[in-house]
């Protein structure tokens, strides 16, 4: 066995459920005795991305593969797509609606934060089709 594969469906209807997938992954990484810095980075990046999926894309799915030295994550949604990825990567840029901002989300830190906490990040997005976010977190020895 080379990896542990996990799959989650992310509901787009309920904010309060965002974080379920990242929470579950976090629990499993701790049970594996995984490197604690990597656990934290996976948790933060996944949580941010999950919130994004709920806010902008009405949910989607997450695939996680845990390897001994790194974690691969795919966060996939069938949302509106990101028109300008470069702009979305700027800190403080946000298209989140007010009700979302009132909850403390949508500060435009999502994608920049995800990039900061991961070792590799790739966005594949198509307007009207959806967005696939590929993330890798490596164990720093």
């Amino acid at each position, binding site marked *: 066995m080379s990896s542990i594969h996990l799959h989650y469906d992310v509901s787009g209807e309920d904010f309060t459920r965002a*974080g379920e997938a990242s929470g579950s992954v976090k629990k499993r990484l701790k*049970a594996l005795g995984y490197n604690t810095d990597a656990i934290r980075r996976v948790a933060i990046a996944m949580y941010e991305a999950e919130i994004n999926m709920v806010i902008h894309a009405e949910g989607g799915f997450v695939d996680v593969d845990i390897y001994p030295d790194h974690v691969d994550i795919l966060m996939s949604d069938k949302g509106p797509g990101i028109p300008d990825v470069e702009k979305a990567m700027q800190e403080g840029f946000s298209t989140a609606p007010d009700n979302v901002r009132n909850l403390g989300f949508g500060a435009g830190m999502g994608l920049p934060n995800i990039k900061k906490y991961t070792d590799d990040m790739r966005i594949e997005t198509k307007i009207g089709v959806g967005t696939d976010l590929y993330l890798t977190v490596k164990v720093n020895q």
Partner: protein
Amino acid sequence: MKQYFHSVELDADKCCGCTNCLKRCPTEAIRIHKGKAHILSERCIDCGECIRICPHHAKRAHSNPLEDIEQYKIKIALPAPALFGQFNNLDDIDIVLTGLRAVGFDFIYEVSRGAEIVSELTRNMIRDNKLRKPIISSACPAVVRLIKIRFPELCGNVMPLLAPMEVAAKLARREVRGMTGLDDKDIGVFFITPCPAKVTEINSPNHAEKSAVSGAIAISQLYPALTHAMDHLTTVESIAKSGLIGVGWATSGGEAAAMLGEKYLAADGIENVIRVLEELEDDHIRDVDFIELNACSGGCVGGVLTVENPYVAQARIHNLRKYLPVSLNHLDEKDVDAMLWEKELTYNAESFALSDDIMEAMEMMDKMEKICADLPGLDCGSCGAPTCRAMAEDIVKGVAKETDCIHKLKAKIQSVYDQLSSTL
């Protein structure tokens, strides 16, 4: 393997093997085996939730009987501020403190005095920006133990400061040594405790090799003797030396309010505490400097070894504080070093890790996921594990078998029965 001391114990004769404690334990540290509850030592944080929930009173906290103070030449009582919320119509803390003198203590040093000094040092440390923010209070030992076994990356956010009980013990000892010329071994320092986690903290401290406290007497155990003594006082001595800041530590929010700033958060009740820690770990709680966390609802007044309803106690503490000065104890810069932790808080991965070898752990988890998918998912606890997932983990670890699941067993018996009936 390292030995853990726990103050929470099981009275096996009273335990009937029901699932109340199993389902309530916040760290999944209980299993029922052969009809009796067992505590997984490396996971127990001594929060006392099992003591609270057990309808058969089979769980108890190990604490010292009052007679134990007789071993010492000088007997010091360290009353927790939560003690002051336990009495009806109390308007003067000195009545309680004089009562403690009447039951046999020579010297009284309120833990709230230590709390005021800890608050001042905490404020200084926040001001000087020396610590990783947000700073998590280290006052509740159950919370500190929880972080130690479950939140690796938050260990560095825990305030590296002794809890008020420990500070009060050190200062009381010093004062009594100065007054009497006695050695530490002749001085008994007893914490009047609202909770079992403090008992554990005395016997097996998170912060040092040895505690300055000699033992702990449960508020609930001392209560009858103390109320009797308080009812029969002829004079009330003037002993109390705490202000509203120190006494406020008895209830949730008191410690945080003593920070005198705005960027703080206080959570109480173990489930709420866990939610806050999870969100902190996910970097979702920002713009907060200080976080006060209490394992018990209401704060220390909600401790499982108290006698009064925590909300009633909270209201009484609130009333008592009205007439107190702000703070009567101040930090002496010379004492700062003695108030810091002697050892760092380090993550104890073994509490939840399947194996210390990642390859082996991954294989075990793979099996676990498969077993789990095949279990009914009712989390009924009948097998003796709190959830189906916990059971799958136990199976992989070799301490449980699939037929411990009564639903699995029932299906198996049904199929044998069906086979037999078809052959008849």
